[in-house]
């Protein structure tokens, strides 16, 4: 495709771009054209963390996401999209950016562009670090990722019991509405609670560690929870309620005594 370059010059009411009178076909008066900033397309070599292999079509999607969000300070892709195969529900993106941004609009635009569901969290680097210090699920999420630029995380676990109380709240619905919830929601709630359990016990948090603890503590296969075919509902619920109650007790005791 033929492209012309020009410079934006200042006008009185509107600014303009001048193009030569003698120009190639396709640039006739009245033809619609696209004007976009001419910046050097930098070659992006994504950083892979704990990812052995990614399907070629996913690599293309990652590159396209990076190019669409090139204004951001960094882009981190995480979640089930990075698992082998195409069973993912959505693509999780952490957008590191210092300015306020309408992340719902990005989700909608990407949904139209790729025909896939996106979950975008926009935050600055300091907020990400705070999240990592205090949020077990952030640690799980960032145990495996692809990013545009290299990430260096220096943080220490900070047990803020009021924050953990808010986190644990996300898992409460499973006990209140067990029969109504879809498998992926049940799995999300179990995963959240187990991540808190590991965090409080100062254990490593990764997707594998969480799944293994679900199996051990809640006595159910993670895949069964996801597919909503829980083999022994009463045992699962009994273990779930017991762990929830124990964690809630520890958290409320911690709130009373302060942050560690």
């Amino acid at each position, binding site marked *: 495709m033929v492209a012309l370059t020009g410079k934006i010059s200042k006008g009185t009411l509107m600014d303009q771009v001048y193009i030569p009178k003698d120009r190639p076909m396709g640039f006739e008066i009245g033809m619609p054209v696209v004007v976009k900033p001419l910046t050097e397309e930098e070659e992006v070599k994504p950083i892979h963390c704990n990812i052995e292999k990614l399907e070629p079509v996913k690599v293309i999607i990652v590159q396209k996401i990076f190019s669409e969000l090139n204004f951001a300070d960094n882009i981190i892709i995480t979640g089930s999209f990075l698992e082998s195969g195409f069973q993912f529900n959505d693509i999780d993106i952490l957008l590191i950016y210092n300015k306020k941004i309408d992340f719902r609009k990005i989700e909608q635009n990407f949904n139209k562009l790729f025909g896939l569901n996106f979950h975008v*969290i926009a*935050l600055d680097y*300091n*907020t990400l670090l*705070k*999240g990592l210090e*205090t949020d077990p699920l952030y640690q799980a999420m960032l145990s495996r990722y692809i990013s545009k630029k290299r990430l260096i995380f220096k943080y220490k676990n900070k047990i*803020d019991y*009021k*924050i953990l*109380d*808010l986190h644990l*709240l*996300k898992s*409460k*619905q499973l006990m*209140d*509405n067990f029969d*109504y*919830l879809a498998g992926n929601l049940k799995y999300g709630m179990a995963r959240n609670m187990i991540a808190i359990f590991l965090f409080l016990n100062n254990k490593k948090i990764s997707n594998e560690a969480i799944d293994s603890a679900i199996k051990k503590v809640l006595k159910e296969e993670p895949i069964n929870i996801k597919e909503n075919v829980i083999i022994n509902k009463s045992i699962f619920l009994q273990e779930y309620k017991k762990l929830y109650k124990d964690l809630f007790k520890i958290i*409320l*005791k911690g*709130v*009373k005594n302060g942050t560690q």
Partner: protein
Amino acid sequence: MALNRKKFIDLFIGNASNAILHKILEKAVEDEIIRKYYDKEFLNSFELAKKYREKINPISSNLPEYSEIKERIMKKVNNELKIRISKGYKNIDLNLVESATDGILSQLRVS
């Protein structure tokens, strides 16, 4: 059909209560950055409540069960907050419950 309606109302109440609880508890968090971060958590519960509200008819006008829904949400939220207060949780303002409930119910066209 009647069962579906009950199911969606229960799910709506659960998520709306969570959103309100989040809103009130996050005010008790001192750190400004963390508070900003928890605004998003409120949004998640709110979006879920909105999703379930869209499955309950009438979608575009108030629900006949409005008073019952409000009462159940307030009871749930108050119970959760009172447990925390009894265990020594500070800076929880129970006076915010009714206005926060009214706000969410009006935003989601329940009242």
